[in-house]
């Protein structure tokens, strides 16, 4: 069992590791390694999955690439440290990865109890249910007595328990370790329902043989703000991850895209000039080169481009922007100003 071994290894790192891995200096470590290690999932279509030639692609991977572009100047210098829902925080805290970009819900207990630092939301999600259309179920309130496939080690496990007991319904939890195993169990009929974040359901549905035989129920039973995380104790590194995310959102808001970023360097808008490092010294204040945000947009793109390329309406996942549209367009994506 790979996951188990790595959990044990991470615990071993906690035992044997030098007491220094969790202190300041992640930026220097990454720059001296010359590669950024991102903790990512073991494979969720559209979010993080290796393509046919083994190159990792996806929404989370693009944010990892954006971070590498900012820190190392080259978006390709990343290493994907795969982890299950169960091992992700142990891996991050044991220093096996530098930053976590992995469909991770921000919660109180993770922030405070697991001692993580969260840096804002890159995807507003919520937990939903997927069923086979042949079951004839149209609402989650009709699921009394159903068998529900669920990934272990996730917030969805707790939401599910709360939702069913709040509505006085019973269910049989079928607890699975990875998304792929959950999909197999759902396909074979071991469970009636698969529940996870709505984005994950869209991803799983797109990978099923006949996506049209399955439907996602209308109920969204939880708030799942997904975002990046880092370890406690390195404020500089935390700032960098926070502002990498903000840079992609601000770029979309200011209309800076992969295609026009070079022209934008001679824009009249002072905020664009500050963002791209033409004016001011924001990059140096972060400890990076001044063109850090330029590199992100040039090599990876702005938030909207990352979204549409990996999970947007023209992809097999076909997710509309919804809550993830910019605040100016009715969504929740809102970055503090670059000032």
């Amino acid at each position, binding site marked *: 069992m790979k996951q188990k071994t790595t959990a044990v290894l991470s615990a071993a790192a906690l*035992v044997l590791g030098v007491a220094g891995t969790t202190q300041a200096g992640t930026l220097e470590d990454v720059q001296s390694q010359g590669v950024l290690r991102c903790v990512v999932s073991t494979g969720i279509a559209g979010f993080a999955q290796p393509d046919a030639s083994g190159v990792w692609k996806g929404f989370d991977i693009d944010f990892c690439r954006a971070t590498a572009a900012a820190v190392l100047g080259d978006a390709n210098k990343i290493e994907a440290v795969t982890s299950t829902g169960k091992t992700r925080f142990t891996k991050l805290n044991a220093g096996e990865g530098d930053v976590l970009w992995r469909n991770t819900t921000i919660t109180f207990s993770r922030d405070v109890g697991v*001692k993580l630092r969260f840096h804002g939301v890159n995807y507003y999600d919520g937990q939903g249910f997927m069923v086979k259309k042949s079951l004839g179920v149209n609402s989650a309130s009709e699921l009394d007595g159903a068998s529900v496939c669920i990934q*272990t080690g996730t917030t969805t*496990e707790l939401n599910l328990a709360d939702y069913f007991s709040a509505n006085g319904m019973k269910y049989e939890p079928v607890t699975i370790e990875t998304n792929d195993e959950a999909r197999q169990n759902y396909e074979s009929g071991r469970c009636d329902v698969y529940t996870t974040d709505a984005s994950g359901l869209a991803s799983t549905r797109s990978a099923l043989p006949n996506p049209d035989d399955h439907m996602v129920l209308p109920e969204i039973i939880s708030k799942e703000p997904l975002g990046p995380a880092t370890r406690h104790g390195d404020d500089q590194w935390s700032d960098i991850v926070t502002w990498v995310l903000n840079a992609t959102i601000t770029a979309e808001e200011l209309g800076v895209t992969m295609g026009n970023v070079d022209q934008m360097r001679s824009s009249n808008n002072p905020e664009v000039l500050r963002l791209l490092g033409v004016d001011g010294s924001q990059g140096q204040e972060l400890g990076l080169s001044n063109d850090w945000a330029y590199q992100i947009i040039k090599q990876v793109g702005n938030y909207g481009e990352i979204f549409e390329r990996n999970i947007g309406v023209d992809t097999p996942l076909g997710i509309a922007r919804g809550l993830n549209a910019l605040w100016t367009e009715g969504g929740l994506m809102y970055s503090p100003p670059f000032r």
Partner: protein
Amino acid sequence: MASSNAPSNVLSQLWRNKESRGVIIQIFTMVIVFGLLAVIARNVVINLEAVGKEFSFDFLFWPAGYDIGFSPFIEYTNKSTHFMSGVVGLLNTLLIAFWGCILATILGFVIGIMRLSSNWLVSRVSYVFVEFVRNVPVLIHILAIYAIVVTILPSTKQAISLGGDLFFLSNRGFYIPAPIFESGAGWVGIVLLISIGLVIAFKRRAKRIQDNTGRIYPVFWISLAILTVLPSLALVAMDTPISWDIPALKGFNFQGGMAVKPEFIALWLGLSYYTAAFIAEIVRAGILAVSHGQTEAAHALGVRPNRTLQLIIIPQALRIIVPPLCSQYLNLTKNSSLAIAIGYMDITATLGGISLMQTGKEMETMLIVMGIYLIISLLISSFMNWFNSRIKLTER
């Protein structure tokens, strides 16, 4: 001059002396081992402090918040504590270990004896089974059986009905009627206990008579008669106080009755036949180690082949079989932690899995889980040591 040289002289003498050199080396080894342990403990404390985590077991009494699909023994809800989820996991681990050891032993003995059969086909079948099973990792066996159970068996709506709609087989489990005890059932239970007592008493008596006179009673058939006739009479006398809760399809799943879940079936069968392959070889080795002269002597005395095996070969073979058998039981118990691969909720999956994740207490949960496996294993070892000392060669 001589006095200033004394200490080094003493040391070099101590070093030259074989016994004291041994002691010195042992002391050094101990210092190194304990030093390493101290470094590890210190590292843990420093590293946990560095991430701002407190080493504490308080989390055990926080509400767990998650549901467990398989808790046959105790009531568990998502409002129970992490401690209770650990208990559920522990009971599930013990359940699989118990039934696994029993099935593995039965299969192992049968296959081991088949392997020694003079029938070519029987011994070859057993040979192929052993070599195939023990040369494939046990995780693969478990995953394969789980895949077979879940994909080949029909869904609940098309469940295979057996015995006139009493038993149902589907990929959600094997559903069987569950007994409901009404008033008066207690008396039947008491009668059952009494008949078990009678069987034990009868067995002792039969053995004594056999030891004294050589007369052999058909112990098995008489025991079976006692065990079936008396409780049935009690059942009739009390006007059948036991009714059956028969499983029926309601909504998504079967309701009522008892369910043996596919996760349990896969883990149980996988662990059992994998371990049985090893036990078969141990049994074969044990039997082959008993000198053929013993069989010949028994045959010469007119003892039938079945009895020769039962009374002469197996008791002697057991002395060789039991110690390695103990290791196999330990292996099976520890391998049961592979449950997590198919979602059987054992201690590794509940306390060492979900609770770890929800509370972020890796060190604490892992220490508890390790401690529990250690205790279970030590209990099994001490039981097997006791059993071994009972059957060992009594020298007069």
